[in-house]
């Protein structure tokens, strides 16, 4: 069949793309396959087995760390989403003014400042507070996670707000709705998909964090990622593969849900 000339076609690009995909996904596929390994080593195949999934599910440290991850993730995501919603409303429902761009940048600070710097800074800052107050609970981790989750919640909410027709709110005000009623009955319902998307993104980001958590956590406050990091230092068993596989499925599930929610735009 005669092919028509395609201006976008560049020789070699398909090969490069294929290589990229292999490099991206092959290690993950290997990791998942070895989660079903019956042997104790991650380097030799000893037949198919689910025993590592079973052993992980009975490991109290794993369960403990998972629950802690969920707890921190849920609270931090909810707080970050509330702050992000307020910030998004404040930065879009206004005429552009001098310093607005600076505010965007300030809100997105965690995207620009290297995590390690934030980690060290929080370690020093929180250790002082710990000395003063004597409190050493999960509050520090939740505060830290909330802070770095805000920009991830902020971006989809702001995007949704910017696409929203201001005339709708004006129409509500014209029809005797007070500013609060307008927000409650018009802005919030229309903003909801953006808020949900922000919430999920924030949750996934919190769940996944290692660097800042590693610096901020006190003893016995391992989250799932920091627990896994600790385990690897002591030598790897396929149990880590099993945990990683479950973690992977969970992340994919949440991101897929996020995709469907954000796509659902009237």
């Amino acid at each position, binding site marked *: 069949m005669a092919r028509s000339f395609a201006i976008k076609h560049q020789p070699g690009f398909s090969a490069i793309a294929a290589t990229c995909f292999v490099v991206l996904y092959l290690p993950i596929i290997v990791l998942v396959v070895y989660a079903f390994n019956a042997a104790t080593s991650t380097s030799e195949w000893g037949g198919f087995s689910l025993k590592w999934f079973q052993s992980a599910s009975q490991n109290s440290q794993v369960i403990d760390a998972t629950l802690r991850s969920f707890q921190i993730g849920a609270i931090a995501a909810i707080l970050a989403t509330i702050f992000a919603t307020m910030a998004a409303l404040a930065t879009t429902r206004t005429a552009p003014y001098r310093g607005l761009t600076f505010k965007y940048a300030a809100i997105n600070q965690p995207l620009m400042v290297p995590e390690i710097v934030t980690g060290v800074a929080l370690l020093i800052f929180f250790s002082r507070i710990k000395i003063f107050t004597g409190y050493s609970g999960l509050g520090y981790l939740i505060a830290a996670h909330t802070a770095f989750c805000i920009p991830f919640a902020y971006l989809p909410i702001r995007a949704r707000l910017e696409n929203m027709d201001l*005339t*709708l709110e004006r129409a509500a005000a*014209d*029809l*005797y709705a007070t500013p609060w*009623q307008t927000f409650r009955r*018009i802005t919030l319902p229309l903003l909801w998909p953006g808020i949900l998307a922000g919430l999920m993104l924030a949750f996934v980001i919190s769940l996944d964090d290692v660097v800042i958590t590693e610096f901020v956590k006190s003893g016995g406050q391992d989250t799932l990622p920091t627990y896994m990091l600790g385990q690897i230092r002591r030598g790897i068993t396929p149990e880590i593969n099993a945990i990683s596989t479950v973690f992977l499925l969970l992340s994919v599930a949440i991101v897929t849900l996020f995709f469907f929610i954000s796509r659902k735009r009237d």
Partner: protein
Amino acid sequence: MKSGHKNGVIVPEQPGRSAIEVRGVRKVFGTGESQVAALDTVSVSIRENEFFTLLGPSGCGKTTLLRLIAGFDFPSAGEILLHGQDIASLPPFKRPVNTVFQSYALFPHMTVAENIGFGLEMLGKPKTEIKARVAEMLKLVKMEALSGRRTSQISGGQQQRVALARALAPQPKVLLLDEPLSALDYKLRKEMQIELKRLQHETGITFIFVTHDQEEALTMSDRIAVMSSGKILQVGTPWDIYDKPAERFVADFIGETNFLTAAIANIGNGKARATLKSGATIDATVAEGFQPKDNATVVVRPEHAKLTSGKGELSGMVENIVYFGTDTHIHVQLDSGEAFTVRQQNTRSAGCGFERGDKVGISIGNDAAQVLRD
């Protein structure tokens, strides 16, 4: 003869109570050097139960004035009275005034019925009353069958009706319409023009209608205010505006017209004698209270002049003939160098009777000319 409007009784010229009174309103945007006056000391009185139109090109300030009346913006100076009470500083949700938006601004997450009931709900009306009123409104705009639909599931014309019903449901003192027909196609627009007139008549609510479409303004309004550059140039009935334009801008913006330079004499009783460049002298009307100088511009509408192969007040040569179906426009180059267009009604049996290059005369009717303030 064009005295039809004198017998027309469509507009009662009695001085009714005013619904909206705009007094010396200024609206300035920006600060310092970049300051722009969107409204430059505008005063106008809009009567109760009137279909009043703000007409002008985009950027003339008509939408700004509407927004000030609705409360989406506040005037820099001046007063806006609603039945004698100053509302200029009230927020929109405290004004008994509702708006039909150009984009309709229907709430996409609500049904047609919920949209229409929203205003009443916000006013805290009991559920049974809201239900009855919504049903009444649905009937008024003939949308009963679609009350449960989402607003994204109905056509543009239907959305327009819902927007109207939603704004009328709380029985506002004044209904503001911001170019509501501009998104509709030609046929639907014509239908909605009639529909709007019917609704205004049936509800007895004062309508303030904003448009840049002069035809729309002429066909629908009781009175029109023509605006340009933040000022109101002339307020009057469609006949006043069309037949007795006070200024060049008004004459030019509304319909087509011919401008002729003339020497003016014998001014009095709202009339004058105008001597055209051709030497012919015709009667012309003069705007009330205006004292023209010796030289002024007079306007003659293309349909108020007649082309003859003999002699007329003007003479020239046919330059172009344009066929429009209902009528034909004949462009004539006058001997004085000025351009003049004559509009001639078409018949089925005969052509227009003239050809390009013909030497022709133009006779101007008895009551066809108006002296402009310029």
